């Protein structure tokens, strides 16, 4: 191989802009300066790139949203992925976080409006993925809470592990998720559900929370003391039992620190 063409008239230049546009839109002509070994038009050779990005991003969507893929079927998910990729191409090489806009994209699809739960199920899958990659944190020993006086406990704020997630939905998203991931899970029943995600070691676990439990945790995440959050939760449900979410959080290694209210 040697240097060539130096004495010829300048050949057609292909900018990355032209390359990228033709790659994203198969109805556009292939840039003239892309050739085969004989100087002929690139043709199907260029299609390799069109196909590579379409297939790799489609597969990224399948692995990012396995429950949505199962609910819609592979063919429908492929079609939806094509539309999504055109509207929201990846903006970062960190493909593990791809698809952040997918839940709101689903919300805006008129042909999916009869499946109102899809966006929140997608939010649950996204939250599980983010919890999986979240920073590690050392949980506090459960005795630290157990050894506090009631007054001291109620005056405390909690610091949570970065993997902790809370989702609230008018749909039974935990039941839908479980029904599509666990063979023995019961069929979902209509109704709102709140989901707490903890990551005890390396695998995120979704837990069902009561409505009042979600009110309590939401307040805690916003910096309320345990007592102040408790007041809000009991306003929702007079029988709210604080020990249930606290146990889930402790078992899930989700509490990493304690701050005493001054």
């Amino acid at each position, binding site marked *: *191989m*040697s*240097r*060539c*063409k*130096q004495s010829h008239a*300048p*050949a*057609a*230049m*292909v*900018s*990355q*802009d032209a*390359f*990228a546009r033709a*790659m994203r839109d198969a109805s556009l002509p292939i840039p*003239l*300066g*892309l*050739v*085969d*070994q*004989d*100087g*002929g*038009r*690139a*043709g*199907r*050779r*260029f299609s*390799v*790139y069109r196909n*590579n*990005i379409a297939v*790799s*991003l489609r597969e*990224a969507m399948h692995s990012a949203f396995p429950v949505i893929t199962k609910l819609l079927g592979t063919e429908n998910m492929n079609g939806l992925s094509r539309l999504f990729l055109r509207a929201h*191409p*990846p*903006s*970062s*090489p*960190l*493909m*593990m976080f791809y698809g952040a806009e997918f839940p709101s994209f689903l919300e805006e699809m008129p042909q999916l409006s009869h499946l109102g739960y899809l966006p929140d199920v997608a939010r649950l899958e996204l939250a599980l993925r983010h919890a*999986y*990659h*979240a*920073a*590690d944190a050392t949980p506090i020993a459960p005795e630290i809470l157990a050894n506090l006086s009631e007054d001291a406990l109620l005056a405390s704020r909690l610091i949570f592990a*970065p*993997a902790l997630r809370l989702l609230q939905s008018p749909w039974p998203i935990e039941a839908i998720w479980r029904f599509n991931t666990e063979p023995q899970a019961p069929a979902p029943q209509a109704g709102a559900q709140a989901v707490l995600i903890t*990551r005890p*070691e*390396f*695998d995120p676990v979704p837990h069902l929370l009561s409505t009042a439990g979600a009110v309590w945790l939401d307040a805690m995440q916003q910096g309320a003391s345990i007592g102040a959050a408790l007041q809000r939760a009991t306003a929702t449900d007079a029988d709210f039992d604080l020990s249930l979410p606290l146990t889930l959080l402790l078992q899930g290694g989700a509490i990493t620190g304690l701050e005493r209210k001054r």
Partner: protein
Amino acid sequence: MLPFSPNPPLSCETANHLPLPKDPPRPPCRSHNTSPAMTAATSPAPSLNALPAAPGVGYKPQHFSQILADAAPVQWLEIHAENYMGEGGRPLAQLRHLAEIFPISVHGVGLSIGGEAALDTAHLARLQRLLAWLEPASFSEHLAWSTHEGHFYNDLLPLPYTGATLTRVCDHIDQLQAAIGRPMLLENPSSYLAFAESTWSEPEFLTEISRRTGCGLLLDVNNVFVSANNLGFSPQGYIDDYALERVGEIHLGGHDSDTDDQGRPLLIDSHGCAVVDPVWVLLDYTLERTGPKPVLIEWDTDVPDWPLLAAEAERAAFALGHLPAEASRPAVRA
């Protein structure tokens, strides 16, 4: 589920079969003088990386337990940098553990070194952070682009080999090597088409980049085979023209087969199947000229069970173990 804790004690049984010292030598930091006069293109470059001249494989999490139980004949592992840029969790815990046992090669797939735009400094900072805590035995990236106007295409896209591309790629490599404080290896791409505007052959282009920036080269023998078929050149001629004295690592992988508009075979780099026999023959041709090198098996899609991947590594070990004596090797061009 993998039986795994973040820092399991290494038992004697685990340690006994480890083929390598736990602390492989670190590549020394070098200053990167880009003046051609200061960078001898043809000098051997023993400091390009610290990988052993032995088989390695692309690490897949599903092989974690088997690799810990018995990795033979695999002696080192390669990871894709972007898969380990999360904040924590299992990927980083596994990598921390593996890095205590195996030399690690970090292979970037998203820096877009050939991109017309400036390097993404946020991504460069993520890479710096990964390399700083991991201190891998090698870092490599591609002669390609993947990002344009903020869109990441998740593929390695081709470049015209022109003076303008050369300047841009060298500037990006200078910036990268200054940021990470070590030399990188730059990999030859798989080509499906050519640019009419190109004025350099690919081996000459890569040699010139290496000469100007001091970077080493990664030679993907399967990519050579694929490109040679697709663009009608001799794969052996390409190897002969490559700056073999700058090569710090060799890659092998599987490819798919299609046809172009004229019905000619069009090979597509897929990393989704076994390495084909003619590529093994081309590896022998290469190793006869380079001597022993770190040889990686890449298998990224339709990932096989460990025994099949280990068998591919075994074949690489065989090739490395049956090289002619140094004196009888064809001379590498000086």
